[in-house]
């Protein structure tokens, strides 16, 4: 009850402050124009459908590449030093590189090489850049999960005669995956909106579609529409991440 009242009061104050500002009427007509918004919606939804497809394909690829990188980084023994160093270098590089620069380099640099077989499609190239950067993040999440499994679990599996591969597959990874699910979902919420950045390469996604509408109407409302759609898309994922963390917490408590 108190929460409800305070929320209403807070909303009224914010709204009043915004609407009473000197530039409100201009902002209202150029950002919150209902007609322009309604007209731009179909094109933006079309673009969003592209974002969704990119998101799903990228998520799958990122999980695979991230897991492989994490597995390589947790290999023990001097024999594996070269691949371990390579994986570490990859993670350092793509975690440090701003996504937008990676997008430009992959999107304009790779086709610029004019090598046979390199696609010229901005969606593919943009997706590749997303996979490169996000798999580095996800690899670190997986690695933390793998290292959080106590060595005694590995000793127990080993003493049963399980080899390294089986131990990882049946004992370490299932436990690691449960622990990292919340962090992983959080990364995917971030990926969801970063999918909109492939528009800088010219792919006609939701952001690009909004941009085209803006250019045609001299009105910024399409950006607001696209933004709201991205937020709406992120909310279920965010709730899913919350739910997963809560479940992980209660499970840990039960142990």
């Amino acid at each position, binding site marked *: 009850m108190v929460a409800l009242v305070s929320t209403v009061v807070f909303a009224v104050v914010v709204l009043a402050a915004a609407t009473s500002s000197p530039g409100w009427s201009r902002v209202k007509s150029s950002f919150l124009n209902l007609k322009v918004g309604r007209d731009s919606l179909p094109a933006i939804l079309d673009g969003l459908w592209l974002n969704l497809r990119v998101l799903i394909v990228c998520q799958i690829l990122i999980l695979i590449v991230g897991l492989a990188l994490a597995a390589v980084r947790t290999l023990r023994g001097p024999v594996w030093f070269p691949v371990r160093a390579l994986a570490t270098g990859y993670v350092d590089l793509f975690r440090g590189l701003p996504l937008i620069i990676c997008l430009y380099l992959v999107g304009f640099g790779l086709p610029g090489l004019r090598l046979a077989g390199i696609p010229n499609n901005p969606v593919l190239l943009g997706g590749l850049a997303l996979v490169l950067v996000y798999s580095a993040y996800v690899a670190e999440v997986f690695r933390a999960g793998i290292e959080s499994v106590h060595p*005694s679990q590995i000793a*127990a*599996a080993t*003493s049963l*005669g*399980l*080899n390294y591969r089986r131990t990882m597959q*049946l004992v370490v990874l299932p436990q690691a995956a449960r622990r990292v699910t919340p962090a992983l979902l959080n990364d995917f919420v971030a990926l969801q909106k970063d999918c909109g950045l492939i528009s800088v390469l010219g792919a006609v996604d939701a952001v690009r579609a909004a941009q085209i509408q803006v250019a045609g109407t001299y009105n910024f409302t399409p950006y607001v529409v696209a933004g709201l759609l991205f937020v709406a898309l992120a909310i279920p994922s965010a709730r899913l991440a919350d739910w997963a963390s809560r479940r992980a917490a209660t499970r840990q408590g039960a142990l």
Partner: protein
Amino acid sequence: MTEAPVLSVRGLVKSYGERTVLDGVDLDVAEHQVVVLIGGSGSGKSTLLRCVDLLEDIDDGQIFLDGHDVSDPRIDADAVRRAMGMVFQSFNLFPHMTVLANVTLAPRVVHHSSRSAAEERGRELLARVGLSEKADAYPDKLSGGQQQRVAIARALAYDPRLLLLDEITSALDPELVGEVLDLVGELAESGRTIVMATHEMGFARQVAHTVCFLDGGRIIESGPAEEVLTNPQQERTQQFLRRVTGAGRD
């Protein structure tokens, strides 16, 4: 031809960095024999068991299992471990698997038993350790004593030649120690070959054929349980036994 002992350890040396934990250990364990390792904490009991199970790289010496040198680095260590079952101080059950899945994991994955055969044997073993009704529960729903009995069933599931028990009652509440020791007693009676590190002197006296006292990484006294525990020859052994009995552990 005389039969080779199930386990034979010769001149085993193991150090962690500068610290030498095992400093030339010799040990023979014949079939159906129960050998109990006693000694203070840090004396090397656990390390010895872990080395025998090839969970640690050794620095020197040899380990023979049924006459085969298993400390040879070229050997398939995973195959060797399949002939041994180990139970740990802190149970180390797999928390993401049910009790039955814990027990049937090795038979199914390593020994390629069919699911039904493995589960039948698993349920038999759980009945034997008195936990039939817990087959589908997860380990975190069990008491420490129950978890440890599951761990013993898991180690027995592939009928190992040798059972290694590493202070398996040390992490248990005192009132739960009995149920686990009773089970080990039954296993010993049924002829299992067992090497066990423990602080339970009373139990060692009842069940062990041989007691070995470790100190500073060496076995400094060994012999029939009654002899070592009642009438130790070495001064260090006498001191140790006075200390543990004085602390009311017997």
